[in-house]
């Protein structure tokens, strides 16, 4: 792997839900156009950490964070940062597909519409492009006005990816994007991640070790709010440094 530009960086990040100390001093660097997988047992803080990168935790009562999160070298928690602008740069895909109860088309162009784009042609064009990127276009192109809720789970998840791509982010955060899906859909999503990596920096949380192995370049193992180990995926899976990583990988717990 050649040395690339640093895209995301966390410096001594702590996070608290009220009194509960959920993240304990995390330092990590993620490079441009790579896929980083977060793994670790349930409750270790993977999601919490992931959501710091687009400030999705902002509205949670009692949530506090310390330290710095840098996107392209700028602290995204600086006072001057507009959260909605940040989120346009950092897209997110959730564990369970969460399409809006609207048509497929409306889902994809939602992000553009709230930015004030109303020109029909632009919207149509953007919709097609992102649906194609998300490998969904062929399946839905004749039914753009159908309700998104009528799609299968796997299709819905790809729709959510298309929706995120439509506003041209540079980073894509994915929190267990395939855990609610069947094996075939999962394979499609993994394939998609592989393609998207060319243009996007991707961070993916997963419970499925095999999946981490298949899709990611580097893997970070979290345990009880700490980042235990971050290294090339192959290294983590074949030759982990830490005993806890070893135990987790081999299924001693989790």
């Amino acid at each position: 792997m050649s040395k690339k530009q640093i895209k995301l960086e966390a410096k001594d990040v702590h996070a608290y839900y009220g009194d509960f100390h959920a993240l304990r001093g995390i330092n990590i660097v993620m490079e441009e156009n790579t896929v980083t997988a977060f793994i670790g047992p349930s409750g270790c803080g993977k999601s919490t950490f992931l959501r710091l990168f687009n400030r999705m935790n902002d509205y949670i009562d009692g949530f506090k964070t310390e330290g710095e999160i840098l996107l392209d070298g700028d602290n995204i928690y600086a006072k001057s940062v507009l959260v909605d602008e940040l989120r346009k740069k950092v897209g997110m895909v959730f564990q369970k597909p969460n399409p809006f109860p609207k048509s497929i088309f409306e889902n994809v162009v939602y992000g553009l519409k709230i930015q004030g784009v109303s020109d029909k042609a632009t919207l149509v064009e953007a919709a097609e492009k992102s649906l194609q990127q998300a490998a969904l276009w062929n399946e839905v192109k004749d039914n753009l006005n159908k309700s998104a809720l009528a799609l299968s789970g796997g299709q819905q998840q790809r729709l959510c990816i298309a929706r995120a791509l439509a506003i041209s982010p540079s980073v894509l955060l994915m929190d267990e994007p395939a855990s609610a899906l069947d094996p075939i859909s999962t394979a499609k999503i993994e394939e998609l991640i592989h393609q998207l990596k060319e243009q996007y920096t991707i961070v993916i949380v997963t419970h499925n070790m095999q999946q981490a192995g298949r899709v990611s370049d580097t893997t970070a193992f979290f345990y009880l709010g700490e980042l235990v180990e971050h290294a090339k995926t192959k290294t983590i899976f074949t030759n982990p440094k830490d005993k806890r990583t070893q135990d987790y990988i081999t299924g001693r717990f989790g």
Partner: protein
Amino acid sequence: MTRSSINQLKDKAFQFFGVLCMLIGLVFLAALLIDIISRGMSRIDWDFLTSLPSRRASRSGILTAWAGTLWILLLTSIIAFPLGISAGVYLEEYTRKTKLSSFLEINIANLAGVPSIIYGLLGLEIFVRQMGLGSSLLAGALTLSLLILPIVIVTTREALKAVPQSVRQGSYALGATKWQTIWRQVLPASFGGILTGVILALSRAVGEAAPLIVVGALAYVPFVPSSPNDEFTVLPIQIFNWTSRPQAEFLVNAAAAIIMLLFITFLLNGIAVYLRNRQQKKIKW
């Protein structure tokens, strides 16, 4: 201005408007309470609580009214609660999704929305006339019981629903029958919730005037009822009576009686809220 800052501005403006709307509600509430307290507070003393009604405002008290209210509360509880809780248990624990059960469900939702004055007409025709109870406490309490029955049923069901299925399964798995499970596990676990609902229903009954007017409870009743067959008056009706008198002093009396009525209502609601919170703290499923 950029698109984003316009959006931010709209966002802020709405936030302001939201606070304003909340204030409208709260200020109105405060104004109402302050107005009534400032009018009526000085009128409340021992004499006021223990005097019979009189044509002279300054001598008139609310003894008969609150005694009637207590009677009504007691009788209504005795009638409505066993019935409502039983119906709630049946609907929540026993019915399968049959035509009957969904019909019952629609029916109860409907009953809950029937205006209270219609219950008054029901009470007038059935209890006062057909059953010949006259404008008695019993007729009034029966009428109010029917009125709050849907509330009791619905809140009982809510409370039962809040008991996780896992408790029932745990009980069945140990060989308990259905009724054993309900009686020994589900009802005790939902007791707080049921009690809460039941008290809320009572607080509704305390404040009702319209159906009682229809069953004929508006008269000069200068004695404390001593049996369910006696005629009666209750606080809301006494208030209604006094507000429709022209002399200003009676308005003071009305305000004072309102304070007492609000006191009872808030007390009941307070107990309900307290129980609900305690229940939520005590049992975290």
